[in-house]
């Protein structure tokens, strides 16, 4: 158990260093799922869920675009259930953190999420 405890202290130190020196990874890439799932999973215990500045913009063919701020917009896309229109819905997701900014486009069509579809 002594070694487990040491590993925990080491883990906290690694997360702290990442938060201080790799903020783009912790606050932008992670929120955009811009990494492999395993790497993303390892970053999930870091407690910054409400800290990135995120805007999600959606549009349906023939309708005006609507934008709304979200703490975790990817979660909104993945958990988007029910009430699907017959047309595909296009999303533009922007996540900002200090000097870093990422923009990605997604489409939800027939209960499936597609990345970078124009």
């Amino acid at each position, binding site marked *: *158990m002594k070694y*487990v*405890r040491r590993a*925990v*202290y080491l883990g*906290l130190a690694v*997360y*702290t260093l990442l*938060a*201080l020196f790799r*903020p783009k990874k*912790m*606050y932008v890439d992670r929120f955009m*799922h811009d990494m492999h*799932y395993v790497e*993303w*999973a390892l970053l*999930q*215990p*870091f*407690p*910054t*869920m*409400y*800290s*990135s*500045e995120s805007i999600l913009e959606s549009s349906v063919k023939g309708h005006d675009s609507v934008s709304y*701020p*979200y*703490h*975790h917009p*990817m*979660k909104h*896309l*993945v*958990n*988007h*259930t029910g009430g699907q229109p017959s047309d595909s819905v296009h999303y533009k997701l922007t996540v*900002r*953190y*200090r000097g870093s900014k990422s923009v990605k486009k997604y489409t*939800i069509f027939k*209960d*499936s*999420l597609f*990345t970078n579809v124009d």
Partner: protein
Amino acid sequence: MERILSRLVNDPLSIVAVLFLGAVFVNLGELVPGLFEDTPVKNSFFPRYITELKMGFPYLILGVLVFVRLKLAYFVGLVICAILLIHPLVFGRADLVVAFYLFLWLFVKDKNHSVFLGRLFVSFIFFGAAMGKLTPGWWSGEQLQNIVHLRKISTAPLVIMGEFLMAVSFLLPSGIACLVTIIILAGMSWAITDLSILMLTLPILGMALTFLAIDSLEKSRLTLYFDEDKGTASLVYQLFDLLKIDTIKLETIKKAPVTDNPENVMSQKGGVLQAQNEYGTRFYGFDCWVEIVSRVAMIAFLSPLFKLKRQIFSRK
């Protein structure tokens, strides 16, 4: 039933367990139905072996596992929390991050309870939250507008300063750290008008009170002398007899050591509690309660308050 009650009262971890169970209860209406019914949108990011896991029952089991005093139970709880954190239906929830660190603390703590490590976890949770908010959007208050059910009086610098204070709270003395935690959590709970904030604040409050209870718990034995003819004293006797506090022995007042101090005799006549610790120090009236509270694990976090009151009155 009596045995369960006695075990609960004699264990400081019961505080955090009860408050965590409260958080699970609050989640019954919000998180749990989705865990049973919803399916995420098909996507290429989440592997199927995670997506297909149904996490409704495992989440509910957390509320039970937190009461079980076994490393294996805490490990199972930790694994459930870890899966919930990376599950497409529930990832990105701060209350699950808190649950993860709670079970991690329960799992890695030793017999001395590793209070420091637990306090470090609480500080770390707020460190992450505060670090993320060091952006122009948060400082200007623009991002606060995105939080639903937030009272307008909340200002961004106040929120960030509060989180930073919590982030360094592990460096403060345990009593002050607990007080700071209670004030900040009360502020958070008040600032957000939605009850769902309790899912986050209750377990953290439970951890803070547990750390203080562990630090304040008196391990020396105390003998309590009751006047069995007095109604109230008799009731208190029955209660303590039921709870079976490890470090409190019960006796009738007839067995109390004889003293010629007139003040103490007055106390005896008034039917007030008397007590004596294993070093021979005698306690009367309110001082008895100070000693009792510091020995009942589940309410030992109140001990600093009782001691403070005793100090204030003794000065007068």
